[in-house]
């Protein structure tokens, strides 16, 4: 008798479960919103500005005052292999650690689907830059207000990473400023593709959030090591805004971003 009841209960339960599966399958239509969060960290630690010190593999001790980067050209891949490119003119963002409101990019009108990959650029791509004002909207004004515009060249800073450091050879806290962007010999834009560990299920009534962790230590302490002390000319600070260091830092960016997890509400 008990078994019959258990079986009956099980059947009913199964029926309910299969009902909701049918619902999910039949609601993959229309569009929804996808949120992409950029969470800045330093190696395995949370990034706290102007307070916590962080040490690199080169034994340089950093205090970070500024982390900003341009995120652009977002392309999402579905489980069937097709891609969705976010409209280019809306696809330029500035993530600024000091401004919490910029940490989550809200992407609207995303076709409902199960997403498995996200690709984005760091910086402004050369095609857009060569088009002059066309397609810029107000991004130039945003860039200026975020101090991500190089006034002398009417160009963009792609990554700004600033603070102070000390080391075995630099006893007093000395400024460092790292700005990437176009230089004479290289453009320095790069695109990063990340697999999502679980799918982001965009639906009309489900807004997933992709939580990306940006390990800023990798900017200078990635595959390529940038030694701030060696760039500290005349003790006036490590000002890295041009030259051969920029392509090296740009190459490091590919390993700086990982998807920590995906929430599907």
């Amino acid at each position, binding site marked *: 008798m008990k078994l019959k009841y258990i079986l009956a209960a099980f059947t009913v339960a199964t029926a309910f479960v299969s009902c909701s599966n049918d619902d999910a399958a039949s609601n993959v239509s229309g569009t929804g919103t996808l949120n992409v969060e950029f969470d800045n960290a330093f190696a395995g630690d949370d990034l706290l500005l102007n307070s916590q010190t962080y040490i690199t593999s080169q034994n340089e001790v950093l205090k970070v005052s500024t982390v900003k980067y341009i995120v652009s050209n977002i392309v999402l891949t579905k489980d069937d292999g097709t891609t969705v490119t976010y409209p280019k003119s809306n696809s330029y963002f500035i993530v600024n650690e000091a401004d919490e409101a910029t940490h989550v990019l809200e992407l609207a009108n995303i076709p409902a689907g199960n997403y498995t990959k996200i690709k984005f650029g760091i910086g402004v791509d050369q095609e857009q830059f060569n088009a*002059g*004002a066309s397609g810029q909207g*107000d*991004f130039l*004004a*945003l860039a200026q207000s975020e101090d991500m515009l190089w*006034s002398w060249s*009417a160009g963009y800073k792609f990554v700004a990473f600033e603070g102070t450091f000390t080391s075995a050879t630099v006893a007093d806290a000395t400024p460092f400023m790292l700005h990437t962007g176009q230089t*004479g010999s290289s453009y320095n834009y790069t695109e990063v593709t990340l697999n999502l560990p679980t799918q982001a299920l965009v639906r009309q009534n489900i807004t997933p959030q992709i939580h990306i962790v940006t390990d800023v230590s990798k900017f200078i302490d990635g595959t390529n090591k940038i030694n701030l002390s060696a760039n500290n000319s005349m003790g006036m600070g490590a000002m890295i805004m041009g030259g051969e260091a920029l392509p090296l830092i740009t190459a490091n960016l590919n390993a700086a971003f990982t998807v920590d997890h995906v929430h599907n509400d």
Partner: protein
Amino acid sequence: MPLLFSCEGSDDSYHDVPLAVIQPGNFPQLTYDVSQNPPTQSGFELGRKLFYDGRLSSDGLVSCAFCHIQENAFTHHGHTVSHGVDNLVGTRNSPAIQNMGFLSTYMWDGVTTHLDLQPLIPLTSDVEMNGDLSAILAMMKGDARYKKLFSQAFPGEAITMENMLKALSQFMVMMVSSNSKFDMYRRGEGGATLTPDEQEGYTLFNQKCATCHATDLMTDNSFRNNGLAVNPQVNDVGRYKVTEAAADYYKFRVPSLRNVALTAPYMHDGRFGSLESVLNHYSSGIVNSPTLDSLLSNNGTLGIPLSPHEKEVIIAFLNTLTDTDFITNTSFSYHD
């Protein structure tokens, strides 16, 4: 229903007039892509209004026109370098704004290659206009004339930085200077002829100057070190700053010589006050350096040999490059 719409004002029935960019027969091809930003009467007027508007600067006074004055072919007469907001000075001479759509790089070091983006450089420089782009946007959005011009030039679109820059480009692209005596002579128009001195000067110019100052635009758009003594107080490394290539130390863009009689003083830092000084430099003032242009060093002789008479007639020729139409054309002037 139709009555209601027509009562709302003339905007719905306004038809913007497309403008054809002048492509003079004796000029190289236009480099600016007008398909991305076709000039129209409203866009041109909007660009003109912006050009003369001091509110783009942080002190409300320094408009583009402050350093780019029409009578001087849009240069800053008598100024080696210009003073911007708070009387701050830069390090380079105001170049002429003319025939911009035919150039391939802008600024003395060619740092930007798109005309749309060039205005950002003086606009955001803290020693020139020191403009805040967000504040400029707010100013335009609150100004009735700007609102009207933007809606006519870019119908259905918001007032944006993009459209502001496009309007400035539309204005500049229409500023073609191609009706000097020299142009009329070259195109066989209006019975224009050169005097014997001018003709002799033109022949000499072609022999001695036209490799760099090439085509009827008088520039080959290249960067060269023309033997100027380096001013140690400034040490302006020119093109090197852009390319970071050692071969580009102290190289600057070859400017167009059109309207050259009006655009004194000369060179990237305005150090020469007269065309005589310029020619004296080329004949006997060249300073050698590792990146000195090879054209200015011939078997150990520096410079371009020029006799006093030759200098005189070359200057007579250079005076034929003055385009009175251009500097008096009221469509490029300030309008209320």
